[in-house]
């Protein structure tokens, strides 16, 4: 079983839609949860960062972490064509090894 599972998509939505992206994980030691956005032929960039369980909101983006279910989500409200990218979830444990483990990424296309 992979440590982190993510639906690869692709996911196509109309402009203005609410997008939900999800990851599941198996390692209960993960405490740091991140979402990175990667545009085509570019390196990933940090979008959201959450420590432990709970919600975090930043503009049109909301990250949720449910540690009891080992499930994290990223919601994008009022999606825009500029949101078209690959979204990667990433996780880090408190064990001190500093290994960031990434999901496979979900390709999102927002249609104008």
């Amino acid at each position, binding site marked *: 079983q992979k440590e982190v599972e993510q639906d690869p998509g692709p996911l196509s939505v109309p402009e203005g839609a609410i997008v939900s992206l999800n990851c599941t994980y198996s390692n209960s030691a993960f405490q740091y949860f*991140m979402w990175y956005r990667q545009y085509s032929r570019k*390196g990933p960039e*940090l979008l959201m*960062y959450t420590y432990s369980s709970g919600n975090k909101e930043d503009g049109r983006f909301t990250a949720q972490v449910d540690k009891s279910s080992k499930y994290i989500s990223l919601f994008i409200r009022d999606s825009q064509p500029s949101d078209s990218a690959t979204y990667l979830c990433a996780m*880090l444990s408190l064990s001190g*090894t*500093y290994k*960031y483990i*990434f999901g496979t*990424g979900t390709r999102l296309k927002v249609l104008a």
Partner: protein
Amino acid sequence: NAGVTQTPKFRILKIGQSMTLQCAQDMNHNYMYWYRQDPGMGLKLIYYSVGAGITDKGEVPNGYNVSRSTTEDFPLRLELAAPSQTSVYFCASTASRDTGELFFGEGSRLTVL
């Protein structure tokens, strides 16, 4: 601001050749990472370093070697290149896991024929 700089951006290798992918960061970050990204496979950790002189294996280290003689540089060496090493390679760095932010380079696209 340079951030994380990777060279070369593109390279074609023949089977059995060797090469080094260069990575340099100017942010004084202690933690540096090498990932490879294959289509639909996300980022796989090859090697990482928590400081000069300290390196450790990631998920897919076979066929690669690293060294970290300075804080700034973290080169990745491919020995005896194989077609399975065709991929996009990303170097990343971070100052601390408290921010969760890995800073990535633009990537090095390698093809082994």
